[in-house]
């Protein structure tokens, strides 16, 4: 009890004396706040990107691509291939007994990013009405569905927000062909919202793809069970394809951004080292400014533990203030912020920065770590302060 009273007294004195070291303390707080802000910016970006992609994949849907292709863009599936795979067991059937699948094209068209005015790659998906039904939560929020055989487009709401030139009713030129934007759709924030959709056969014709497709999606009879499809592909040498559930496919695509998390941590650690140096400097100055106070308390009989804890507490409090400022700023400035980046398919994926409670906790933990390490050595010095210093 006595030691707690001692520690509390020293803590209160240290905190109350902070205004005497206002600018230096503020600099330490600011340094920690910037580190936490930058870290959370990277993590929120990765988090948002992952959530967009993980929100896209379904365990009920299988996706077939050419074996060895890293993404839909460099995959090719012939009409024959589509026909053979559609006969596989394990694909759900509609009420007429026909397999539920969608053979799709995935090509790149030019768009202009609103924020930078630069030209970027936007994915144009050739899709059929059954393909639309294979996506959950598709709703047309403006205009109408494109008509088969016509040069008509629907644009995802995220893509419309990020890229200019695709407003409803506008004509868009791809190469020598003109297309009309007839609808805006939403898919509940999934990656498909970053796309432009048109009739698959029209895309085949206008982009000279003959009868080939790039991917094939199918509804599974049993959730997550692609065994029958795998067996079929393995047994037939003509089928040089890869099959996986849509959930797995997009999870792998999401991993492409895992590098940004590592980069974010690396930048934060380097900056954190700077903040740590600031914290150390602030706290050594604090201990130095309070030499007589610390030594006097020790002369009176206060333990060196109280001197240690009091100094450590001051450092942790400063860093905590910085951490809270950094996370609050990150929430205010970044949470929900829309952005787009190049996906593994070399096209733009639109996503929003997502700051979860976990990220908030990560930011606070890093701030506390900086405060603890930055305070430890000055606190050690305070605890070892010769008591004779009280006598000047």
């Amino acid at each position, binding site marked *: 009890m006595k030691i707690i009273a001692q520690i509390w007294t020293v803590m209160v004195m240290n905190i109350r004396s902070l205004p005497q070291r206002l600018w230096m303390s503020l600099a330490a707080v600011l340094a920690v706040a910037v580190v936490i802000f930058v870290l959370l910016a990277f993590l929120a970006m990765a988090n948002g990107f992952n959530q967009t992609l993980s929100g896209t994949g379904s365990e009920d849907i299988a996706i077939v691509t050419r074996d060895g292709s890293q993404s839909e863009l460099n995959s090719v599936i012939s009409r024959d291939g589509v026909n053979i795979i559609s006969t596989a067991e394990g694909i759900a059937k509609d009420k007429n007994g026909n397999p539920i699948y969608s053979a799709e094209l995935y090509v790149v068209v030019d768009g202009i990013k609103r924020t930078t005015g630069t030209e970027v790659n936007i994915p144009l998906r050739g899709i059929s009405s059954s393909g639309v039904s294979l996506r959950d939560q598709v709703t047309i929020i403006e205009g109408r569905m494109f008509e088969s055989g016509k040069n008509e487009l629907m644009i995802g709401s995220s893509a419309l927000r990020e890229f200019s030139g695709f407003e409803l009713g506008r004509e868009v030129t791809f190469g020598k062909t003109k297309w009309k934007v007839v609808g805006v759709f939403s898919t509940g924030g999934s990656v498909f919202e970053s796309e432009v959709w048109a009739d698959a056969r029209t895309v085949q014709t206008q982009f000279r793809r003959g009868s080939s497709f790039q991917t094939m999606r199918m509804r599974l009879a049993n959730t997550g069970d692609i065994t029958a499809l795998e067996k079929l592909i393995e047994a037939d040498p003509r089928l040089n394809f890869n099959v996986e559930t849509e959930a797995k496919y997009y999870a792998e695509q999401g991993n492409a951004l895992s590098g940004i998390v590592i980069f974010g941590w690396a930048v934060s650690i380097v900056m954190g080292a700077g903040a740590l140096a600031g914290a150390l400097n602030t706290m050594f100055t604090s201990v130095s400014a309070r030499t007589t106070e610390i030594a006097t308390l020790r002369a009176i009989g206060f333990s060196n533990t109280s001197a240690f804890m009091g100094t450590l507490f001051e450092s942790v409090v400063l860093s905590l203030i910085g951490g809270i400022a950094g996370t609050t700023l990150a929430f205010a400035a970044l949470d929900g912020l829309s952005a787009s980046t190049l996906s593994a398919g070399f096209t733009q994926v639109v996503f929003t920065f997502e700051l979860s409670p976990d990220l908030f906790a990560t930011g606070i933990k890093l701030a506390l770590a900086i405060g603890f390490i930055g305070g430890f050595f000055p606190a050690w010095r305070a605890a070892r302060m010769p008591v004779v210093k009280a*006598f000047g």
Partner: protein
Amino acid sequence: MSETLFDLKNVRKYFTRGAEEIHVFDGLNLEIEKGDFVAIMGPSGSGKTTLLNMLGGVDQPTDGEISFSGDRIDNLSEGALANWRATNIGFIFQFYNLMPMLSAARNVELPLLLTNLSAKQRKENVATALELVDLADRTTHKPREMSGGQQQRVAIARAIVSDPKMLLCDEPTGDLDRETADEILSMLQLLNRDFGKTIVMVTHDPLAAKYAKRILHLDKGNFISEEVD
């Protein structure tokens, strides 16, 4: 029958400065009896403050024995010395050494945080100590809101609040004008005379020393003369 409070036997204290070894004390002997008021005078570098530090348990001799009420203190650990100081010693410093962020009452309460007294008991003891130094109306004032003399009186209240046997004063009037210095010294005299506090005071000021019962003159680590009131 008088009781010896401090007993220093053959105390040696050496410092090293670079390659040089400085002998501050080379076999110092001293006895201080309970209820005594000793002034230690001497030129700078004579060892006054080093002696005070050793008496207060904030510094230890290189060799020799220091006993307090018959118990050796020169071989105690740092933690044990801190406890010993909390129980037995009240310090009064030249520049008061008050905590600038704390009120007079909170400053005075500091030594009581090392006891098992309840908050209510601590408050009562603080009020008594501040009343004794005639500062009952300044309890909430911060040090910067008080004069030098008032600050030193707060420091005296802090030194006596836990009722230690011994007061160690390092130039207690060195930062005060003559009139205020006389007030402080009269207060120390009262604490010695009426409350039985044993006092050791280091001072350069011969007028301040006259308030003591015994004046010891220190030079180059040796007592060269003694005046008894």
